[in-house]
């Protein structure tokens, strides 16, 4: 089997492998950070000092790590704007790849556009669901 044949057969595997890598790394880092943040906050409280606001924000962030808010969802009204922006981004990507698919639908590689458009569409729907029914 040549490299070209191998690549042609298994190129799509790079996406799930990348997703798993990011998920494992994100989870590991998130857990470590959460534990360390709470330790530092405890030390501040034990010394009778007010913990810095960035540290408190970091401690709150643990709940928001997986909400697709891309790190902007902590704090007040920003969260809703970030969620709305996430929806707009995924909707725009869906429209873009959907249009791309429509223009090249006769080609062999058109399925790639369709796969990305459907994936982005599902993410857009998820983001819309979080925007409407998520935590206020």
């Amino acid at each position, binding site marked *: 089997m040549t490299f*070209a044949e191998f690549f042609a057969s298994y190129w799509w595997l790079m996406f799930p492998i990348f997703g798993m890598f990011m998920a494992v790394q994100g989870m590991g880092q998130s857990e470590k*950070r959460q534990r360390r943040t709470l330790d*530092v906050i405890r030390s*501040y409280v034990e010394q009778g000092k007010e913990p810095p606001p960035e540290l408190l924000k970091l401690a709150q962030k643990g709940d928001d790590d997986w909400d697709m808010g*891309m790190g902007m969802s902590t704090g007040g009204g920003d969260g809703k704007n970030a969620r709305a922006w996430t929806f707009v981004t995924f909707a725009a990507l869906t429209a873009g790849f959907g249009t791309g698919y429509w223009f090249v639908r006769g080609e062999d590689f058109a399925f790639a556009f369709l796969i990305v458009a459907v994936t982005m569409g599902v993410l857009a729907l998820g983001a819309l669901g979080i925007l409407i029914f998520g935590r206020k």
Partner: protein
Amino acid sequence: MEELFRDYWWLMFPIFGMVMAVRGQSNEFARQERILRDAEKNLERAP
């Protein structure tokens, strides 16, 4: 090689997205690490 590129040129877009995602994640981790280090330093400096 040319044929491979002709067949898979569009992969450069998702690969670019993945590179940006890795960069974004590592920047975010570095920012969090800085906040924690600063907080710990402030704590050590306290009398």
